[in-house]
């Protein structure tokens, strides 16, 4: 549970189309001060008479408490459903109901380490803020971004500048190396002496990275993506099976026990079934 979470009315400061996505800035007051890479916000959709009753969750791209009108958060939003299409159609000056910061954050090592950041599609968004923090702690940061095509790579110029190397992969080869992020990660780990991987993107990608991380014996923190109804831990819809330090598998909530979790603790590929041995399996 993120103890800094608040519910506020937030004004949209800007909304710009970037490739297949929208980069949007929201005025959020003190939420910005407490937001950490990996945290997310949950926003009401569709206005007062909307037939969409559930919030939408978005990873925080960047946060600053030093805006002209106080704190703000930046989000990168893919308009792929009625809710996100509505949100990305709003003009600056419009207000939305926003809850944040929510969820767990990426763990920052106390010693300088060699880190690899891997993002799939708009999953790259929270990695740029993370990269800045890691760099400020003396870490070497390499980055891999993958997507189906060039339009779906989110990599702003200032983000590119903040990393030591950037490798891009696309399924259709329209930019970078044709293929998946998992094709290029092994050589990056070997060549750059990577000690920890941070990742954010679709579940299939996170599962593939977990396998590679285990082969090479490197740590892997990933931000998981599960559909949520509430984002605050009360609805129990966003669960996934996670093995605890006691060896017991439990159905944990990705909104409050995640979204950032240790990749090796997740029982992947568990859609539509409860893994054998899960606590309370029925």
């Amino acid at each position, binding site marked *: *549970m993120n*103890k800094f*979470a*608040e*519910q506020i009315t937030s004004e949209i400061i800007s909304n710009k189309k970037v490739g297949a996505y929208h980069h949007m800035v929201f005025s959020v007051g003190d939420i910005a001060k407490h937001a950490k890479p990996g945290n997310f916000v949950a926003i*009401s959709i569709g206005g007062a008479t909307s*037939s*969409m*009753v*559930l*919030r939408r969750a978005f990873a925080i791209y960047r946060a600053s408490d030093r805006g002209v009108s106080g704190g703000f958060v930046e989000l990168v939003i893919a308009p792929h459903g009625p809710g996100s299409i509505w949100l990305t159609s709003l003009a600056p000056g419009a207000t939305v*109901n926003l*809850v944040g910061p929510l969820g767990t954050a990426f763990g920052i090592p106390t010693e300088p380490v060699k880190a690899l950041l891997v993002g799939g599609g708009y999953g790259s968004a929270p990695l740029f803020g993370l990269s800045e923090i890691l760099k400020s702690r003396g870490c070497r940061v390499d980055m891999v971004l993958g997507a189906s095509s060039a339009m779906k790579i989110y990599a702003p110029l200032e983000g590119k500048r903040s990393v030591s190397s950037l490798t891009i992969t696309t399924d259709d080869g329209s930019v970078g190396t044709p293929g998946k992020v998992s094709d290029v990660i092994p050589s990056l780990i070997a060549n750059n002496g990577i000690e920890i991987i941070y990742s954010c993107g679709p579940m299939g990608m996170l599962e593939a990275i977990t396998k590679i991380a285990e082969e090479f014996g490197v740590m892997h923190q990933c931000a998981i993506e*599960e*559909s*949520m*109804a*509430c984002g*605050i*831990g*009360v*609805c*129990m*819809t*966003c*669960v*996934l099976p996670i093995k605890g330090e006691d060896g017991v598998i*439990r*159905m944990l909530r990705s909104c*409050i026990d995640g979204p950032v979790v240790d990749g090796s603790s997740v029982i992947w590929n*568990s*859609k*539509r*079934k*409860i893994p054998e041995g*899960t*606590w*309370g*399996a*029925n």
Partner: protein
Amino acid sequence: MSFDYATALGSANFNNPIFTASGCAGSGKELSQFFELRELGALVTKSIMVKPRSGRATPRMAETPSGMLNSIGLQGPGIDTFLENDIPWLREQGVAIVVSIAGESVEDYAVLARKMRAVPGISALEVNISCPNVENRGQVFACNPETARAAIEAVRRNIGGELPIIAKLTPDVTNIADIAEEVVAAGADALALINTVLAMVIDTNTMRPKLAGFTGGLSGPAIRPIAVRAIYQVHARLPHVKILGMGGVSSGRDALELILAGASAISIGTATFGDPTACLRIKDELETLLVERGFNSLKEAVGYAHREVTQ
């Protein structure tokens, strides 16, 4: 004269009529970071079972027009852990507590009632005999008068003392008033109406049911007219039995509608998912609407829609 917002279910009294709905407020801790729980009329806990339960596989949720399907499957820690961890914390919050219990057999209800018997600081027991998210629909006790009666009798026999029993019913029956009569005869002091409505969504891309459990419970404003109908029918048949009304209430206006139909208190469920502070907003809105209509107390408005129109 100040407005009297107090209400009662059986012998249990509450400061105001706005409760959480079972399964929609977690353990209470999650909502407590957004408001003081003691502001609620009562916190209704997630239905607890005898043993720990993982719940169903994912996907567990599908948003639908003005609603959502859930198929959680009563995930929870089991009654012993719940009584040890959750109840002491809730008592410290100074909020009235309604514990919701659910069983897979009549014997489970008896066991749960015995466990609850010696627990202090509980206002009432909600007996969930209507969760749609169980593997075997035959287990939905409230679908059948005999099983509904047996489950409530088991609780009544074992609970002892004065703890009021609120039987939670499903609208997925031919005549809900018949089931209501059965459970009241079996010892229920009040009724919770309505549980979610059994429903299904098919993903037209995969062309398979969207939820891992195939069916789920529909909640949200989409089912509100069903709740109003069920409450109206039951209040007409059993005007002296108090009703905890629920089903898609997301504003004070919606809460008023259920009260006019015959509810004495209102549980807020899905609205909390979209708005963590929905309960407090609805509590304020409802009070304003009642005062505007000239009521001096909540109780005067309960079942008002049943009155004959007079000139």
